């Protein structure tokens, strides 16, 4: 065929082979005559024509098209049922130059994901949604969808959908076009060649608008499901044109973005908002400022009311003042009411991935239950600081340095039980040297406004340190395993 030139062929936006399973990698998993394949081709061709394949991220839904990531040679994320517009929002905001497509069916978009699509549209997210509406739950075997027509038989409406019991078919284009933010909403159908060509234009236009940062675009595609409708593929698509499109009128529902009236809200730098002075440091300066600090993962645990969460906040705040990367993750909710409370603090020199600490380097256990629960989780070579004169007899921690500080008792003697956490802070700083003492004093002074308490905190800090020193001395005398400094 030397004299013939290729005008239409498999788009480069598709993988050569579809590696979903070992067999049948040369074809999709869709049934013969399925609308998904036709829509996939429209998208793939449009990505090629617009030259954006390399920066496209496709979010596949739950439904028959869940496997879209086996077909599109683009970035791919598979979202939980209905959540594709929310996932797409995050992808687009974190990668503003990417082209983000949320590909969804009617069960995904119009049933379980109604909230996500409405709010993504209402925020005017600069994403493109392809909404494939076949009026039925296809993958799960033909249950009623919100888009199922009145009188239409499904496995859950065996006598046909009745409005008094099952409500009315939901019209997403009409609904979303009532919002002000969307830029482009059109409904098309795969009923015949002419309409398929119109649909191709709509798909391309929606994507092109995204490249122009026009805002939210959605194309609803009425699509045949020959298998569930129990029709021949050709009959199924006639049905789409003659029946489905009567209930869901085709056309452009929105073709411009409403002009937003700009609201002038002065944007303060975050650091300024938090009263941190907004000091800007280069990486090198940051490194040098951190030289008096050491990275640590710390778990603080105790009863609610012992200042467990506050101690964590103090540590995190101190880390921040020293230009470290910090995170503070409290245990929330019913778990901590009148029961045990704990928090995770990470003091790091690198960016922190997850704030959850499963194996802490340092455990500050403000009571015995916390010690029993979290003590065994401390890393080998780590440290436990226990609020008590000595460990319970039946407990021992191999490979872990244990310091027992009767912080509650010390705090009582100072004059306020609530400063026990600061006693532990003093001991912990002395034992680990992970943060400068001066910073602790500054942070305490800043965070505790009550002058009387502030003065007690200062003393608590010192007594904690002194007690720890004596403890270390005693350990050093007691045997060679002490952490003797």
């Amino acid at each position, binding site marked *: 065929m030397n004299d*013939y030139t290729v005008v*239409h*062929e498999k788009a480069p936006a598709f993988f050569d082979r579809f590696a979903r399973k070992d067999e049948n990698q*040369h074809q999709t998993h*869709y049934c013969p005559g399925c609308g*998904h394949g036709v829509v996939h*081709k429209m998208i793939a061709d449009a990505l090629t024509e617009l030259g954006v394949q390399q920066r496209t991220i496709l979010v596949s839904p739950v439904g028959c098209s869940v496997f879209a990531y086996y077909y599109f040679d683009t970035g791919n994320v598979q979202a939980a049922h209905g959540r594709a517009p929310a996932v797409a929002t995050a992808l687009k905001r974190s990668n503003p130059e990417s082209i983000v497509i949320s590909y969804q069916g009617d069960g995904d978009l119009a049933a379980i994901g109604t909230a996500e699509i409405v709010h993504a549209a209402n925020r005017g997210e600069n994403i493109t949604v392809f909404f494939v509406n076949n009026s039925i739950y296809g993958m799960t075997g033909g249950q009623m969808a919100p888009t199922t027509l009145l009188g239409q038989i499904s496995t859950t409406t065996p006598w046909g959908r009745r409005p008094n019991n099952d409500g009315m078919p939901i019209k997403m284009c009409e609904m979303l076009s009532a919002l002000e933010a969307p830029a482009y909403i059109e409904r098309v159908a795969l009923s015949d060649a002419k309409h398929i060509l119109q649909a191709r234009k709509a798909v391309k236009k929606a994507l092109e608008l995204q490249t122009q940062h026009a805002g939210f675009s959605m194309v609803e595609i009425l699509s045949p499901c020959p298998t569930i409708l129990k029709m021949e593929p050709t009959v199924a698509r006639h049905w789409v044109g003659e029946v489905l499109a009567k209930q869901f009128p085709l056309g452009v529902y929105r073709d411009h973005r409403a002009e937003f009236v700009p609201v002038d809200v002065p944007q303060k730098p975050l650091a300024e908002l938090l009263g941190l002075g907004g000091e800007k440091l280069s990486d090198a300066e940051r490194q040098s400022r951190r030289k008096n600090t050491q990275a640590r993962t710390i778990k603080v645990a105790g009863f609610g009311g012992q200042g467990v969460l506050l101690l964590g906040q103090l540590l995190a705040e101190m880390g921040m003042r020293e230009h470290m990367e910090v995170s503070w993750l409290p245990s929330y909710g019913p778990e901590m009411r009148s029961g045990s409370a704990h928090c995770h603090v990470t003091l790091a020199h690198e960016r922190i991935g997850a704030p959850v600490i499963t194996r802490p380097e340092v455990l500050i256990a403000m009571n015995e239950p916390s010690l029993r629960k979290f003590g065994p989780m401390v890393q080998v070579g780590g440290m436990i600081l226990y609020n008590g004169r000595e460990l319970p007899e039946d407990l021992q921690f191999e490979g872990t340095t244990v310091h027992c500080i009767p912080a509650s008792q010390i705090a009582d003697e100072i004059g306020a039980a609530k400063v026990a956490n600061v006693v532990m802070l003093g001991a912990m700083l002395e034992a680990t040297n992970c943060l400068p003492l001066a910073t602790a004093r500054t942070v305490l002074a800043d965070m505790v406004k009550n002058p009387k308490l502030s003065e007690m905190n200062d003393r608590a800090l010192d007594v904690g340190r002194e007690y720890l020193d004596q403890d270390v001395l005693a350990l050093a005398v007691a045997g060679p395993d002490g952490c003797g400094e």
Partner: protein
Amino acid sequence: MAKGTIKVNQDECKGCGLCVESCPQKGMELSPELNHYGIHPAFLNNDKCTGCGICYFVCPEPGALTVYKLAAGQTTADLAQHAEVAHAATV
């Protein structure tokens, strides 16, 4: 001689018949033979193909159909052998 032609990937075609119904030249047909997967795949049955691409647009399979057009300025006179090639590719 045809202004266009197509190639059907006999293994990828699922025999849904959408191209048969859509071809403006009535040029598509489902083969009476079964392919390896037990499907009657489509093939081009006449030489009236214009390379319009409608079969490609309505086909749900990404690579089942490839559409060719006669290169610009080409006459149809000397293309007998290409018809054979095209035919061979569809069977």
